[in-house]
């Protein structure tokens, strides 16, 4: 800004800077793991007994965080966890022992994203959640670049077709079409919104046969 180096960061980043200045980088990096050092704010929400913001060093498993927040609420039977929010990815209860670090989430094809850990019990219709995510991105796209402007619309249309039992061909071919669209959006969109607009939806469709 004004031709000077400029930092635009959020409070979570700046509060970490304080500790680095006070105690030095090495002391700070002793928290967390080698590739994900320091602390993270985990925003735990959904079907959980004590939803809230939990500040933890990188590295606890999803299960640890869920337990810290009092365990699964609702029906008590966990269906899915959304990591990283609408632009993140769904994981299944079988993946609860994944440590919450950049490298471990990446290894299972997920993402830490914004630090969101959102729980869904088995009363939730995930198809409906996916449609809401698709509608969110269709509404949020600014419309500047083609892959995001049109891709978010085509993605929502595709989910509406699947949800209404009106697949153009087979559900498998619709899934393949969504994968192609998602790759083009991830590869060719200008910003992170278009690049991640299919991330959560595809992660759910890859894990569960939601529309069959």
């Amino acid at each position: 800004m004004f031709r000077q180096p400029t930092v635009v960061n959020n409070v979570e980043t700046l509060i970490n800077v304080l500790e680095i200045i006070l105690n030095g980088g090495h002391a700070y990096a002793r928290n967390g793991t080698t590739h994900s050092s320091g602390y993270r704010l985990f925003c735990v929400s959904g079907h959980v007994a004590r939803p809230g913001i939990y500040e933890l060093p990188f590295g606890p498993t999803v299960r640890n965080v869920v337990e810290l927040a009092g365990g699964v609420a609702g029906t008590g039977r966990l269906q899915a966890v959304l990591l990283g929010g609408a632009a993140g990815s769904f994981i299944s209860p079988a993946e609860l022992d994944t440590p919450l670090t950049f490298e471990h989430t990446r290894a299972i094809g997920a993402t830490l994203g914004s630090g969101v850990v959102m729980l869904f019990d088995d009363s939730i219709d995930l198809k409906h959640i996916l449609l809401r995510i698709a509608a969110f991105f269709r509404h949020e796209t600014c419309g500047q670049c083609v892959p995001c402007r049109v891709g978010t619309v085509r993605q929502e249309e595709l989910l509406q077709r699947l949800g209404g039992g009106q697949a153009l061909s087979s559900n498998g071919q619709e899934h393949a079409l969504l994968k192609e669209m998602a790759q083009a959006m991830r590869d060719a969109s200008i910003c992170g919104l278009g690049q991640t607009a299919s991330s959560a939806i595809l992660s759910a469709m890859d894990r569960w046969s939601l529309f069959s």
Partner: protein
Amino acid sequence: MSEQLQAPSALIPVPRAPAPEVPAAPARREIEITIDGKHVSVPEGATILDAARRLGIETPTLCFLETLTPVNVCRVCVVELEGSRTLVPACSRKVEAGMVIRTDSERVRLSRRVVLEFLASSVDVSTAPQMQAYIVRYGAQPERFGARAASLAQPPKIDNELYMRDYSKCILCYKCVEACGVDAQNTFAIAVAGRGFHAHISTEFEVPLPESACVYCGNCIGVCPTGALMAKTEYEMRSAGTWNESRQTHTETICPYCGVGCELTVHAQAGQIVKVSSPLDHSVTQGNLCIKGRFGWQFTQPQK
């Protein structure tokens, strides 16, 4: 500086001082990169598109035009850059030493094909021959999103005697906005309004063109890649089925109006002028004209 320039007589103006010498620009550093396995050197500041063109590699572009600032929004020119998480737009990404680029990988072809499918499923490409050629080249199938895919279909806007604006054909390449703005005309009659799928080109407060700041230079028509913007004469001939480019002659001439000396390309069909344009690479116009040069040719032919 010491000797004062004297006018020879009161009636003859003082001769001008000699023009100061313009210092030669420092030679630009050559940057070497690799594209599709071939080495190429281009001057610093050149784009990947420049380098690809030097190698004779054809890169599709829709929102790029040599005379306009790249906006890199159509994303059809994307290429694979080693070490980059995403593809990068060739039209605007400047070369950096040692870049390794692939322009025809499966990943590049997929993005280009899907981008063309996204566009052609949303807009009418019937008057966009370049896009039609890309659609064939990349095997794009816009119909794969189904008959109910949302489109921008809408009636053309005809609210003046010179232009037709058919936004069911608009791919939002921003070229008209740039030509109307700082890249050419500095009139700023149009801009992108709205968001998302419904972002569109608009006059201020969506007023009809005659109530807007438009000066009818037609430079927006000159840069439109899809025929969304068209001279009304051409639109009327196309609607009547009488527009026939194969029967048109192109005559290069100089605009008869003012002393600027704009180069005109006069498009004539059956002995009648049907359109006037100007070459993009002409040093005077860079493709731009004013209302008189572009539309003021009726005096040359008898009125019907």
